[in-house]
């Protein structure tokens, strides 16, 4: 199994004319990999870009301009708050979903200020993930 977990921080899917392109910024390798497996299951057309921190996420975003950003909060190098803020500045209509293990109001004010689409609590319930992404497509 470990071979699949090599960390390329890049998409395993070829870009297409798909209307769903997602940037996933998550520092936990397993969760990142999991999202890379589950999102194409939920949305077969989806193009997924994987980043292990906010800085890498921002670079990928700048290169590919995905419509939807799914981001963790606590990450090394650059956290999710900072990345979301910079992405908003780059492309204000980007849909942002915040993936959080903090089930409280920590960070909420900061994200409220940036203006995001939704929060997704960890552990991730796939149904909720589906709904959150689905809402961003509209």
């Amino acid at each position, binding site marked *: 199994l470990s071979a699949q977990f090599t960390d390329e921080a890049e998409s395993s899917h070829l870009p297409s004319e798909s209307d769903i392109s997602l940037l996933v910024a998550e520092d*936990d390798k*397993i*969760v990142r990999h*999991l*999202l890379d*497996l*589950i999102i194409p*299951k939920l949305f077969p057309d989806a193009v997924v870009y994987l980043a292990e921190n906010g800085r890498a996420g921002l670079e990928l975003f700048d290169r590919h301009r995905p419509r939807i950003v799914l981001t963790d909060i*606590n990450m090394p190098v650059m956290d999710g708050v900072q990345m979301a803020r910079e992405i908003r500045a780059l492309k204000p209509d980007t849909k942002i979903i915040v993936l*959080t*293990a*903090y*089930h*409280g*109001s920590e960070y*909420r004010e900061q*994200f*409220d*200020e940036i*203006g*995001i*689409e*939704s*929060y*997704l*609590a*960890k*552990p*991730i*319930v*796939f149904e*909720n*993930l589906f*709904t*959150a992404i689905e*809402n961003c497509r509209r």
Partner: protein
Amino acid sequence: MKSPLRLLLVEDMEDHALLLLRALGGTFDVTFERVETPQELEEALDSHPWDAVIADFNLPEFSGLDALRMMRAKELDLPFILVSGVIGEESAVEAMKAGAHDFVLKGKYSRLVPALERELREATIRHERRRAEEELVKYREHLETLVRERTAELEKAKEAAEAANRAKSEFLTNMSHEMRTPLTGVMGIIDLLLMDNPPDKQRPLLAMGYTAAGSLSRLIDDILDFSRLVSGKMSFRLDPFNLRECICSAAEVLALEARHKGLRFDLEVDEDLPEMVVADEGRLRQVLINVIGNAVKFTEEGEIHVAARCASDPARSGHDLIQYAIRDTGIGISADSREKIFEMFTQVKTPDAISSGCGLGLAISKQIVENMGGKIWVESKMGAGSTFTFTMILDDAGRNQQDGETTRLGNSPPISDEPFSGAGH
């Protein structure tokens, strides 16, 4: 036996001095020094300890009164007796005012011995009193120092305890955060395997794994909530939401579970309930899920009845509150346990107890309900079932929402999933 006397004589005439010493010699074993000038006096006062000073009133270079003042300036409290050939009333008064202890005429030395003896006694008493007073002062200062030190120690201990509490709370917060990430992996992977049509043999095992991981996730939520409650850090968000939808969706999950157990599940939401209210939806859902979840868990047959209705607030006339009543036909709770089930740290050991989970659910619910301005209580009959009731106040903002006025916290994004609901149990 003669008592020793260290005498300082301020006298310019040696023969006068000798007469005086002779008068004292019968009573005292005298060692003395005779000085004539202020300088000599100064040196003598500084160089030795003295028992008494006897000074001539008139000296060529200074007066006996000057000598007295010099002694006083050094804060020496020695018996001081003035001797003079002539004495006017004014001089005597002046001398006594300046602090001389006695005034003796030259040649009338018979009075000198008793006067000196008396003054030595009094000086001794004075010294002892002063020493006692000084000791008292010292003792008091020592006490004050002790109190100050102890206070500082206590302050330090308090700070340390507060820091420890903060650290504990932070630790719990960090831990539960750290635990959720790998748990996301575990649950997600099981979920993925379940989606991939696993062999029939494996499906129930995977489902069990998922359920177990879900329990762990709720446990983490409880621990985090508990640490927040203890540190007073639990936050409440006031956002407008559809009350009926919130109640229905919370009940829905547990209705399914109840029906799986063969229980009847009724939900009765009063028509009068305001449609939109301003409160913390996630926290309300958490309490509902906890209380209804307990009802389902401890009922083996019969029914669960959930009711939500509007009632007037007895504490605030003209205001309404919402009352939620969850009735079951379960095992019931003994009178003793009824008191305890809402307490933190209390895990009732009797068979009727709420024993699964970490026993924090109801304590957390109570705190949440109280924080939202309500109350929670239980009525129960052993073997017949229990009814948990809790209230939620409706403030004016809630009414405003109903009237369609602008929101107080209009900046929040629409929330598509169940964020921060803390799920409870």
